[in-house]
């Protein structure tokens, strides 16, 4: 069955994009292959691994469970929009580096977007709270410990 197309206007990392998309195009594929923002990664396409997590109107969501058309009129932030500028990493990115919170780096963008919003909403988390917030992002490399350390460190640095 042929798919129909829609004109959409979506803001990603502050830039507005106007595109024509097929109804069934996933938001994750749109970001990666239409907008060439390949920092968002796809791990499962069934909403379990969390690698594709982006920020949609301020909340972290799985981009593999949304259609590109649903982005029309909304604002999205991806990992490419996280750093304040080319020379300065976001405190979370910096602490992930300092604590060795990434190995292959594939799940990392999804974790960064999830944790960024989490820390904005919960600036003084306990380790238990961090792990709970992290439970929707699977990592196969790190065993999570250094990621948790990085989030706690970022929280501490942001406070001081």
């Amino acid at each position, binding site marked *: 069955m042929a798919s129909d197309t829609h004109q959409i206007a979506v803001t990603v990392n502050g830039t507005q994009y106007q595109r024509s998309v097929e109804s069934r195009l996933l938001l994750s594929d749109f970001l990666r292959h239409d907008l060439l923002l*390949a920092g968002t990664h796809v791990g499962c396409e069934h909403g379990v691994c969390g690698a594709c997590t982006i920020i949609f109107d301020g909340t972290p969501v799985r981009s593999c469970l949304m259609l590109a058309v649903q982005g029309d009129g909304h604002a999205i932030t991806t990992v*490419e929009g996280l750093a304040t500028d080319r020379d300065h990493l976001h405190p979370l990115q910096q602490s992930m580096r300092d604590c*060795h919170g990434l190995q292959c780096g594939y799940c990392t963008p999804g974790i960064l977007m999830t944790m960024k919003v989490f820390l904005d909403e919960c600036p003084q988390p306990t380790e238990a709270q961090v792990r709970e917030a992290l439970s929707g992002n699977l990592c*196969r*490399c790190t065993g999570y410990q250094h990621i948790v350390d990085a989030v706690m460190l970022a929280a501490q640095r942001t406070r001081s």
Partner: protein
Amino acid sequence: MATRSFGAPIPRNEDARLLSGQALFVDDVELPGMLHAAFLRSNVAHARIVSIDASAARSRSGVIAVYTAQDLGEYWSPGPLLVPPPPIQGITFNQRTQVPLAKDKVRHVGEPLAVVIAESRYLAEDALGDIVVDLEQLAVVTDLEKALEDSSARVHDDVRSNVAARVRQQRGNYAAARVRADKIIARRFSYDHGASSPIETRGIVANWDARANQLTVWDTTQAPVFLRNGLAGMLGLSERQVRVIAPFVGGGFGPKIMLFYPEEVVLPWAAQNLNRPVKWIEDRLEHFFATTHERGQTHDAEIVLSRDGKILGIKDVFLHDTGAYNPYGLTVPINSQCTLLGPYVVPNYDSTFTAVFTNKPIVTPYRGAGRQHGVFVIERLLDIAARELGIDPVEIRRRNLIPADAFPYNNEIIYQDFTQLSYDSGNYEPILDKAVELVGYREFVSNEQPRARAEGRHVGIGIACYVEGTGIGPYEGAKVQVQANGKVSVATGIGTQGQGHFTVFAQIAADQIGVDVRNVDVVTGDTDQFYWGAGTFASRGAVVAGNAVNEAAKTVRQKMLRLAAEHFECAEEDLEIGNGEISVVGVPGTSVRIGELALKANPMRGAVRPGTEPGLESTQYFGPPSGATASGVHAMIVEVDPQTFMLRVLKYVVVHDCGTIINPLILAGQIHGGVAQGIGNAFYEQLVFDEQGQLINASLADYLLPSALEVPRMEIAHTVTASPLNPLGIKGAGEAGAIPVGPLFAQAIENALGLAERGVELNEIPLSPNRLFALTAKLR
């Protein structure tokens, strides 16, 4: 003088790119005119192919081509045997390797039947539904023991009883030892390992440039050099016409070093045929069938001991599920066979295994590579022996450890690297002592556990020991060059899937050449940059490639000193290197930047002395005589709910010896990651096949990878016995965390619930609340 970076917890060079989404993974490759492939896969486990009709698919708008085995013509052939069987006496080995697209028969669910190439992956998958396949289903072979019966259906028509291999290795005289024994313990164990499930699945982009006569392949492979050599041979190209790039790879863990997967063989051919780039990205569902994994073994094992708990001998007869094809030879079961011996003195050993073909996906190494199975058997046998002989579980292990003065310790049987299993160095008792101390073993057993029991809480403790043969050959190489801008470039053939090679190799080179580690640029996994080397597997990257980098960097250092000595007209001993420059000791103002030296070493005009090599560059290779043996002990305290059988890890301790440490932060990450996979293997993950060879839990919703709530915080300590087999003294560490977790869970859960004394033993992995409920039925 620059700070030494070797041994320091330096943050990684590669992280800024990964953290800002600027690192290239295979699916990020976008080429003009690129097409997309989707594979039609068998949905039954065993069938004869009657017909495949792709005509409707071919005529769908947006579909460029559909290929079956017939279309591949002479290109179609079974893949090569990647790892021949080791030179062991009396082996039976029946080689049957996978094919690019099934012809005549399909032998496992997921085996590719056809490939659609279309304008988009969405369209290609639409077209899969158009292909009409007529399959005549055959009886399915899944159970290992039934597969070996004469009357069983045959996975390969000409291989009776589905015997892929039979191997017996012996040391000493087990039968004689058995006669002398005070205690004989025999049990059946079953150990099931699972799917590596990296968050990035496999992927390939193949681009044939007809004008440049060049094939470029981006692939998530762990072995880019051998992939390139093999593809060149298959396609009738010279090796220099083929470039394989393994860019950033999102986790490997073993199955990405399996070579000549059907998709890897088909895509380059299709790209050449169509003169357009073609991309295939494995989706998660496909990954469960299309990428290799490890599975199960059943062991009938017997241990004989003296009454003071000394091992007199072990006999083990086991079955190994190798899947429908065996391209990777016997690596996994040989590792089980060898690693069973552990850090213990086992003077008499008789081990036989039969590798069995089944109608399931191919089994090849996954982090641990069969060692888990062997370690489970020995550690469980020792626990049972401890109980029956009235000896403390820590004590029985201590009594059997190979003493510190017995190295190199030769176990005589043949290991996966085709040499005798020899432990190069080790000191096991301090590791055991440290683990006991860190986990608070004595305090737990005498005080905490009784107190908890009185409160109605079921807490238990486990401890497990292992050794791991790492850093095996054949060899790796590296090219190191000082560039005109003073930065150092390093190129090596192995790839990287997260182990921090861009940093650890930089640390090694930086220290030799006297530069900041951030000024060392490392390239891995691009055959145009370096095209010798076997790849990342068997915890060998740091050891073998690391030492090659060291040798090359050392040679460059020598060239720098020689050139600087000429430049300053002094002796080499009067020079010091550091901070990117060379200066004469004690003479201020005399220094030259190494970049300048590099320029001097590459004059545009003039004459040079015969035998001079230009620049400050060197390529060196390192091949160890045998593997270096790492070792460790894990200890764990758990709490188990006696009614729901849900489990919580209260404490997890790892004491590990991998020789000299290059980067403690990266090493800790490797151990954490390994333990997390071990926890998944022990209590959460299982590939559940039914009798028809269907995988009934093929999704991440039902194949349970542990999250941050299931993996505890771990405490890690190290001891160091440097390896005498390489100048850096290092041993591998990539797999260690994953190896002993199974027996640890079995022991700790038995201990928490007081099972063994009530007649219930946990002799299988994985465990789960459901399984524990079933195993404890007789107690209710």
